[in-house]
């Protein structure tokens, strides 16, 4: 028998609560009122007193599981500790962020507990005796409703950037701290180092205008055209992941989940289809332009202005027009 509770995992890194954790709390609060469930949160770590106080201001109950071995995230230790907490609390739903850490925990934990897991969801419903998650397929070109195989315990991961954070103004929450002894258990992984972000040659987050190039570029030699475009606009050049993977631009120019988050006044996406991992990094821009040959490209779902067309035909006349206007 499960307890009528939603347990939300708080993610933190480098001594900061990650923004997605606040989004998750907002989503979980929503689910709690929708499904008449109680709200609880869990955080794992070491020396995190200031962070847990921050969380407790937002959450009514926080289970803080503490051990030196939990100072840095590792899948095996996290899942081992979470598994025993879940067996003890028997929550109805476990909410995780669909981050790199969260997606690893979600699948590994669900496999260990043999419970259904709905990954990377945009929303959750309860329909005729099953949990139903809404998720995207094919990089956002298709959407689907997916049902869990049972109505009991569910693990769900939510897509970052989907739920708006709001301050519910909760009273100070209760912190239930527990020190966990992990020294008697043998784990098969060892943490070595957390590498900090590298500054790179240019800080793309500092520009008011950012031109993003994607897979539609097709060829490294064509980068020059978009550099000219960015220069003419007084902006900077950034890229989606495939361009960086190909080695056409350095990693520091990457916009998206694993790269930088930019919030310029104007973001012009050239030949970028708009995978969710990219959208996370740029959808805070005030004005978004999408130029793409594929009318189904998900970039048009976030754009203010769109041109369905060939970037190599659209950009050159734009450069000419800007130059003639400014000269």
């Amino acid at each position: 028998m499960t307890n009528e509770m939603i347990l939300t995992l708080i993610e933190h890194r480098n001594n900061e609560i990650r923004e997605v954790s606040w989004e998750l709390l907002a989503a979980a609060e929503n689910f709690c009122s929708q499904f008449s469930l109680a709200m609880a949160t869990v955080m794992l770590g070491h020396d995190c007193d200031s962070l847990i106080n921050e969380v407790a201001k937002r959450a009514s109950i926080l289970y803080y599981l503490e051990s030196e071995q939990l100072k840095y995230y590792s899948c095996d230790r996290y899942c081992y500790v979470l598994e025993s907490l879940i067996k003890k609390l028997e929550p109805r739903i476990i909410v995780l962020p669909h981050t790199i850490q969260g997606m690893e925990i979600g699948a590994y934990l669900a496999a260990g507990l043999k419970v259904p897991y709905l990954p990377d969801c945009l929303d959750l419903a309860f329909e005729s005796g099953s949990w139903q998650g809404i998720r995207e397929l094919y990089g956002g070109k298709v959407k689907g409703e997916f049902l869990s195989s049972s109505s009991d315990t569910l693990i769900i991961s939510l897509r970052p950037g989907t739920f708006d954070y709001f301050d519910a103004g909760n009273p100070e929450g209760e912190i239930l701290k527990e020190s966990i002894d992990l020294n008697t258990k043998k784990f098969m992984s060892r943490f070595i180092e957390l590498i900090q972000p590298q500054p790179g040659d240019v800080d793309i987050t500092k520009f008011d205008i950012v031109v993003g190039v994607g897979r539609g570029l097709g060829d490294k030699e064509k980068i020059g055209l978009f550099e000219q475009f960015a220069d003419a606009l007084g902006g900077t050049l950034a890229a989606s992941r495939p361009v960086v993977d190909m080695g056409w631009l350095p990693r520091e120019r990457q916009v998206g989940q694993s790269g930088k988050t930019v919030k310029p006044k104007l973001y012009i996406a050239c030949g970028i289809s708009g995978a969710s991992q990219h959208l996370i990094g740029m959808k805070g821009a005030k004005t978004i332009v999408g130029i793409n040959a594929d009318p189904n490209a998900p970039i048009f779902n976030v754009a203010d202005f769109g041109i369905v067309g060939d970037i190599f035909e659209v950009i050159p006349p734009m450069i000419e027009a800007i130059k003639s206007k400014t000269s």
Partner: protein
Amino acid sequence: MDVVVTIRQTGILRGNPILTADEKSVDITKLKRHINEWDQYALEEALRIKERKEAGITVVSVGDKKTEDAIYYCLAAGVNEGILIETEPSKYLDSWQIASLLARVVSERPYDLVFSGVQSEDEGCAEVGAILARMLDIPLSSTVIGIKSLIEGGTIEIQNELEEGFYHIRTLELPALITIQTGINQPRYVSSLRLRNTKKKRKITKVSPESLGINMMELDCKKMPKRLFIPEFGSAKLELIDGASSNEKANSLLGRLYDRGVL
């Protein structure tokens, strides 16, 4: 050293997606297919180990008969053995079912490392690798962007990617499963001539779920599609810029940006 690479053949979706009649999956019978992008990097990473060390590489995939093409491609690229766990065409299998089939094959062979792609282009669940690691009871690390060292019978040291430019470095004891992130390498090109020759000379090991002792009708799944749909085009705020020529579109867009005061 024995390395197993799990791969998935995915449909390449360009233009309008077409759903199957029951609206539970995308009809990929009319799509060109290729090896899932992340799995291409996983394959290449395994091939590079083989170039440095004495290693045997086995590729395993769950899919219909057409998935043979993907496995021949891997054989042509240099893997030693290709295994297809053949399932019915167009049948939806959830990650748990796929991992169960893979686990049955992998657990019956010697292996030091299992490589999977981080996620698939179609479902994008990012879970098969993690479930498989749990089923095999071996350590897991996801989104691996670099292998720092590999000691046979010992450990693998990897760098894995986190968000916003952070990375972790960690070691895992072997055997281990890692999921490979795009950009870790540049996958090699296999010529069509080489592929044709491989198809003539080499054989794929084909197994059915039944031959593995798995009854597909009774194999647990953890999630199932209720209904897929094509999302409406564009956001509510989207203004599509039209024009008779690219020139006209370009000027019209600039005009709108000047009007809005963002230029």
